[in-house]
């Protein structure tokens, strides 16, 4: 056991870890963050958007100065059937004015910048280090083991991502279940800034977001996304790992991506672009029922590692939870260090503060959203219904056209005016 102990060791240089390190360093604590990748950000992936409003009180200086990409002023949802699509667009003048609600973001740039801020505050950020295990002392976590080295710490914050091994090693989490996770695949396509602005009808600095749902996931839980960055587009799909495992016939995830890109609704946006990056990542989809135990003696769990991610259907959030939980963890850690008490009893304060914050409140509110969103009919029947409906409304053929109401009702009857449809509608109250 190392004689000297650091105040805090943080495992993982994602947003939760960096936020915690920043706050601890700011409070004058000796903090070391260990990151497995070449630099913080090198292994981190987001679809592409961060909602900053909930974070303004947590890390105001970081949020104000961060190198985000574009502020989002235009939201689009595209419902895809096999050969047709319906697109909805929502724009709001208020979103074009500061303070902006959400920004597109590229993590390689943002996280590296954030880690420099941590170092400016006096925190140590060391990349290329994989933490292998926890150190224990009298039944409490007392540091970490990394590459044969033992690093003692009064408190350890596990921020090692969706597949957190630290939480598992500390006995805070069950082994992983495929049903709780989704696979995200993302590509970054380079396009000229001007071209992006013209193509999406944006002013300088403005961004757009496009969600896709329907035939692209071939009946499986998931969807697609597209975000405009400064001079790139982030394009990707998310699909439930459980659904992917049980899909018959089997399909490789990259095939879904290729088919998605070939769709005219997607191809129009990326035309002429150059593929710059390809990434894949695991996302926690379990909601509040999937979160780990959040603390034990000498250790706190934050961000994805704790399962803080929420799919609310139209908005998908993880980064805000990561930053907020990192900040809250640091706050509790600072208090615990000042009191010299890192017992399990004292660290229970962490969960208390999370429950009072938007992190666990939002996750509680949307406790049942997964059940609703997992309904396979959302990815098959409803897109078909919408497509058929608009097909009837827009098409003109050689035969005389029936009344619009009559046609629409016939389509609705075929797809949604039935017992299943009633049940689905009833289930929406859970959202």
């Amino acid at each position, binding site marked *: 056991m190392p004689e000297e102990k650091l105040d805090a060791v943080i495992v993982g240089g994602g947003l939760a870890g960096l936020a915690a390190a920043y706050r601890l360093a700011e409070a004058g604590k000796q903090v070391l963050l260990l990151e497995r990748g070449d630099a913080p950000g090198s292994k981190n992936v987001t679809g592409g958007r961060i909602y900053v409003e909930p974070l303004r009180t947590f890390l105001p200086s970081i949020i104000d100065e961060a190198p985000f990409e574009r502020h989002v002023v235009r939201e689009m949802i595209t419902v895809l059937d096999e050969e047709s699509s319906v697109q909805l667009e929502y724009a709001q003048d208020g979103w074009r004015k500061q303070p902006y609600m959400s920004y597109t973001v590229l993590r390689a740039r943002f996280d590296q910048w954030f880690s420099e801020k941590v170092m400016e505050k006096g925190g*140590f950020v060391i990349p290329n280090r994989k933490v292998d295990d926890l150190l224990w002392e009298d039944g409490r976590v007392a540091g970490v083991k990394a590459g044969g*080295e033992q*690093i003692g710490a009064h408190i350890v914050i596990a921020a090692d991502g969706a597949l957190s091994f630290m939480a598992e090693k500390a006995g805070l989490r069950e082994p992983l279940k495929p049903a709780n996770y989704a696979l995200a695949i993302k590509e970054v396509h380079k396009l000229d800034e001007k071209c992006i602005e013209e193509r999406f009808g944006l002013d300088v600095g403005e961004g757009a977001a496009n969600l896709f749902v329907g035939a692209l996931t071939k009946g499986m839980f998931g969807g697609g996304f597209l975000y405009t960055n400064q001079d790139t587009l982030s394009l990707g799909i998310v699909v439930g790992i459980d659904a992917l495992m049980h899909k018959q016939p089997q399909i490789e995830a990259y095939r879904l991506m290729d088919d998605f890109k070939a769709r005219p609704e997607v191809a129009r946006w990326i035309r002429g672009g150059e593929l710059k990056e390809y990434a894949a990542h695991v996302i926690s989809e379990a909601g509040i029922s999937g979160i780990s135990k959040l603390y034990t003696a000498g250790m706190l769990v934050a961000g994805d590692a704790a399962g803080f991610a929420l799919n609310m259907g139209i908005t998908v959030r993880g980064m805000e939870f990561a930053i907020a939980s990192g900040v809250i963890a640091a706050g509790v850690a600072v208090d615990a260090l000042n009191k010299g008490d890192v017992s399990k009893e004292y660290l229970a304060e962490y969960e208390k503060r999370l429950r009072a914050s938007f992190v666990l409140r939002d996750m509680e509110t949307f406790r049942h959203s997964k059940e609703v969103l997992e309904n396979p009919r959302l990815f098959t029947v409803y897109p078909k219904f919408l497509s058929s409906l608009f097909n009837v409304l827009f098409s003109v053929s050689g035969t005389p056209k029936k009344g619009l109401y009559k046609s629409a009702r016939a389509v609705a009857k075929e797809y949604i005016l039935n017992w299943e449809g009633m049940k689905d509608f009833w289930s929406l109250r859970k959202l």
Partner: protein
Amino acid sequence: MNIVVLAKQVPDPEAIVGIRGDGTGLEIEPKFATNLFDEFALEEALRLREKHGGKVKVITLGGGKATEVLRTGIAMGADEALLLDDPAFFDGDGYATALALSRAIQREPFDLVLCGKQATDDDRSEVGPMVAQLLNLPHVGGITKLDIADGKATAESPVEGGKAVVEVPLPAVFTAQKGLNEARVPLITGVMKAMKAQIPKVTPNELGLSTEEIGKAGSKVRIEQYLPPKKRAGVHFIPGDAGEAAAEAVRILVDEVRVI
């Protein structure tokens, strides 16, 4: 034993390098790494110190991220570092750089100078041998083994079809190459120590050098222009069935390219 290591921060092997529009310089993606061969030199110096005692001092010349190589050295275990970061030192050729470094080495008594056999950015292999010349010391290049005993060094370096075993009196200059050792990964505690370390600097004046003698002004070699490598012509696919395509290929070779 006092060992001096000359080390250089170079563009990361994966960094994108391009030529500036007017051909007067290079545009290099700001990703850096320690010169691979200097890592071997550093490792060897640390192993010699572990065996014979003494201290290891790392010296570098350069601005901005150049300091990182000194921090890497300290993280690995070097005792001291020295930085030559006055802009007057910059943009020099091998000679101007070697002159400044040799003066920096001479500020304290030393027994051994180690550096990489070349930097992986410009690959000129000049500084090590020139430092030896300027210090009037023996130089053994591209070593793969080094033993010190009784004020003498025995070094091995590969030659065509075998290896040369060279014995030289100390002090002497050695340039390291692959095969000498496997560089250690610094301890986390070492990296933390290095991040906090104050890096001492030295000015041309303190080395007894005028700005005319060093950097670009003191260089004997001037780069006129950078030119891109010749672009390979695009591959031309000949469509059609194999027989027709072969006939067309022959026609192109005979009539158009006229190589047959």
